[in-house]
């Protein structure tokens, strides 16, 4: 019996438990494909037991669960957390309210997601407005005496001020440690305010990777908002997305489909109708797999069993999988053929321009797989990549969703494939090992250090840019602009130093501290000696 996601529970099992997610690994992508044992994990997800000796990619012996090997680093730097992800998902709904039950610091990134929200609304042709997230602004006395009354009042304020269609409550480290019972308060307040009140257990310390926050957000939406008695809309497809430009409509119109984007920039009704769609897909399995699987398991909406829609191979396969569901196989074949013919001249032109150019990708995991396909379609060499985590399997565990394997099989290996959670200090080693002319990044904190190493960055803020056939052209054209920026980066490199010690910069292995932690003692005693002298 396949293990179903439990919608009765308000909390979500962490990714590391559910999927075996890791945050530190270094090697060739092909080795990570092997170690991940997607096939074996897929079978297990389906409820089929695999004997221990037949399971691949186990780290060490004796442990009952089969876990991927993972490096442990003593030095970590600023990262996101699940609580921030919930802000960027639930806090970016147009007619629902998120209440952060936390001290004010947890709301300090509201301004960032506000910027993303406003960009997203513009791209989706919706009226631009500032987001409206509440923070209970907890103080020292609340830590001592509890803060439930503040939360109750915040729920009432939210109702009175904005008349939202639903109210979400997010947990923070502080409120989880002092044991705030947001489940009970949600139950208690729901009848009073007359709209769903949805607790989200996304305290930052809960999961070692922020992407668990996507699952928590989607879980809350599926639990309380998605319609239980759907009336099928045969031309509607769910695309689990962030704030990207609406390119999916252009891609899917020829198949007679309308796009229902979720969660960012959506309203309550758009989320509710997710169960009425004919299928669910996404631009990134890291983001969309949980929602797609919940909709499949609990609402009978199938998820698209295909690679992600990047490059020719991925986009072809993705369109064919959708065509099968909507019964438009024949038309789709013609569409694919004409699209290839349409974009090919421009792609050939771009390939000419990118001869000898090397690229590097530093983004979330599944998205990186898509981006690297696009770069290689453009003839750009990609010898290395840093992804912020790795899921050896996705919730859907579908036949054709093994995105890393799809990349390696179709476009070749990536010799230096690094899993590392936004660790800027590793970049001197990473870029000594792998030469590149540019990096594509998402998530803050890395591009500025790459910049000082002379490498210009494409901050891929509109995540839909590389999607589909036109995505290859869009990406190529933007990259030409980015390559020109190299002049700026060279100036920077000539005059600005990295904030890291000479000792550290002289190391060759970005993970040397994991492998030989004892070198730290030597480095420190030398530092003291130098200081003394």
């Amino acid at each position, binding site marked *: 019996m396949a293990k179903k996601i439990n919608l009765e529970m308000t909390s979500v099992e962490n990714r590391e438990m559910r999927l075996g997610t890791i945050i530190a690994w270094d090697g060739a992508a092909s080795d990570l494909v092997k170690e991940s044992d997607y096939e074996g994990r897929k079978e297990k997800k389906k409820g089929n037991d695999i004997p221990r000796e037949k399971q691949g990619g186990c780290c060490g012996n004796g442990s009952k669960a089969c876990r991927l090997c993972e490096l442990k680093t003593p030095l970590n*730097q600023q990262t996101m957390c699940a609580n921030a992800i919930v802000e960027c998902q639930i806090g970016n709904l147009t007619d629902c309210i998120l209440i952060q039950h936390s001290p*004010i*610091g947890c709301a*300090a990134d509201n*301004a960032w997601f506000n910027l993303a929200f406003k960009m997203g609304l513009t791209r989706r042709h919706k009226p631009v407005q500032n987001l409206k997230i509440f923070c209970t602004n907890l103080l020292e006395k609340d830590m001592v005496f509890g803060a439930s009354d503040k939360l109750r009042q915040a729920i009432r304020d939210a109702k009175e*001020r904005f008349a939202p269609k639903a109210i979400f409550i997010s947990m923070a480290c502080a409120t989880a440690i002092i044991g705030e019972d947001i489940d009970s308060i949600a139950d208690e307040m729901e009848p009073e305010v007359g709209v769903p009140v949805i607790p989200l257990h996304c305290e930052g310390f809960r999961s070692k990777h922020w992407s668990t926050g996507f699952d928590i957000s989607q879980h809350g939406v599926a639990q309380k908002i998605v319609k239980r008695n759907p009336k099928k809309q045969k031309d509607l497809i769910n695309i689990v997305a962030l704030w990207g430009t609406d390119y999916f409509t252009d891609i899917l119109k020829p198949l007679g489909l309308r796009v229902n984007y979720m969660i960012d920039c959506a309203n309550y009704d758009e989320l509710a109708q997710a169960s009425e769609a004919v299928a669910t897909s996404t631009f990134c399995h890291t983001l969309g797999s949980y929602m797609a699987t919940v909709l499949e398991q609990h609402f009978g909406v199938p998820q698209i069993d295909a690679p992600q829609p990047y490059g020719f191979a991925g986009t072809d396969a993705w369109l064919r999988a959708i065509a099968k569901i909507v019964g438009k196989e024949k038309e789709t074949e013609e569409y694919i053929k004409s699209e290839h013919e349409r974009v090919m001249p421009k792609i050939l032109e771009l390939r000419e321009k990118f001869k000898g150019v090397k690229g590097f990708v530093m983004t979330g995991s599944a998205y990186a797989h898509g981006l690297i396909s696009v770069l290689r379609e453009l003839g750009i060499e990609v010898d290395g990549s840093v992804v912020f985590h790795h899921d050896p399997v996705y919730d859907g565990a579908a036949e054709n969703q093994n995105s890393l394997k799809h990349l390696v099989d179709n476009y070749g290996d990536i010799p230096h494939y690094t899993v590392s959670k936004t660790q800027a200090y590793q970049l001197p080693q990473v870029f000594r090992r792998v030469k590149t002319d540019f990096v594509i990044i998402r998530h*803050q*904190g890395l591009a500025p250090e790459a910049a000082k190493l002379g490498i210009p960055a494409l901050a891929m803020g509109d995540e839909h840019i590389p999607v589909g056939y036109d995505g290859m052209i869009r990406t190529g054209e933007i990259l030409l602009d980015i390559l020109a920026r190299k002049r700026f980066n060279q100036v920077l490199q000539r005059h600005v130093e990295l904030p*890291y010690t000479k000792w550290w910069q002289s190391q060759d292995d970005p993970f040397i501290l994991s492998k030989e932690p004892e070198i730290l003692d030597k480095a420190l005693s030398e530092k003291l000696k130098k200081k003394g002298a």
Partner: protein
Amino acid sequence: MAETKTKSGTIVHPHYGCTVGAAYTVAAIKGGVPIANCGPGCMYKQFFLISFDNGFQGSAGAGGGNIPSANVGENDIVFGGTKKLDDLIRSSLAVLKGDLYVVLTGCSGELIGDDVESVVRKYREQGFPIVCAETGGFKGTNLTGHEIVVESIINQYVGDYDGEKEQGLVNLWFDVPYFHQNWRGDYLEIVRILRASGLKVNVLFGPQSGGAKEWKNIPKAQFNLVISPWVGLKTAKLLERKYGQPYLHIPEIPIGEEATTAFIRQVVEFAGISKRKSEAFIKEESELYYYFLEHFAEFFSEYWFGLPSQFAVIGDSAYTLAYTKFLASQIGMIPVKQIITDNPPPRYREKIAEYLHNLAEDVSVEPEFIEDGYLVEESLSNTDFGSGVPLILGTTWESDVAREKKGLLIEVGPPTTEEVAINKTYIGYRGAFTLLERIYSAAVGGK
């Protein structure tokens, strides 16, 4: 907007970060390395309000994505996080260049009660320049955090001193780095003015600072200069007790010739140094100032198509006061709504209000102290700006109201996402014109 009857202490649209945001106070010290004993996400969150989405300031050295962080996880909450912190400190000392390392403990570490001090002490006793600060986010704003961090550095790093004082040397306690988006440019202008007036200045933050070693000179100063309505007073009082240093408190950050000249005379008088240098400097700067002002006057008097007159300022105590004073008393604009959002301690509020009551001979405005952005916007929305174009000096959060009122919004405080601040100042002799350029370029249709 709907009438609101409740005020639960919740905040929509925050105008400040939390205590641990003072990591940016450390990052502003040359050679300063913040080490965040925090959950994952804490530094990321503070980064946005205080640095990135605050004029896209960027950072140098160990700010931004370079800040080491414990990223406290479930195991650390259950079993204690000191081992992880120890590893983090050891590796940070080896990997990050620095002259002063400051461990900031956030909510998680404080609530589970880890003994951070004993971990830090071990390294300090070995000879590393390292201190720790208790900055659990529930302790208040990043301004509170700023004062906690400064105090921790003074007590644990600068230490005791009973040597000589240096006549004419002043410790400068002024803008809160990063929080005040023009802090780099502001420090340049104030330091330029003080030095040209014959003072020696211990600059503790920013590009002109000697960094950690300049902090070691703090006890040698003749006196402390606090330029802010309230932030920094706690520090000055600590230094008075600790090193017997008097302090001069000037609540109004000077903008324009008259205020800046008065500021110089007050400081020079307090320092008791010769007035020869300062008066020569005042003369030179005043001539320049009025040369430019005369040019500006032509535009200001002859522009046919209307200019904004009634204005609001939404900001922290320091800049609400400074901008309001300059625009009201020097340009003759009419202040109609001044909202102070930085939660100044109650004992300073009356004094702050008093300054705003006496802006000029016949100009007075009653400030409101509001932290909840929803109530700020509601109050702004209900403001009558007369018949002209409303001018709002505020933040990104006021953009919806500005649009509704067809006003001119100039973002001057956190969060600011429609301005890029590099080397900019709106204060002193030189900055006053940059402020006028910014306001009137927008008024004549520039973006």
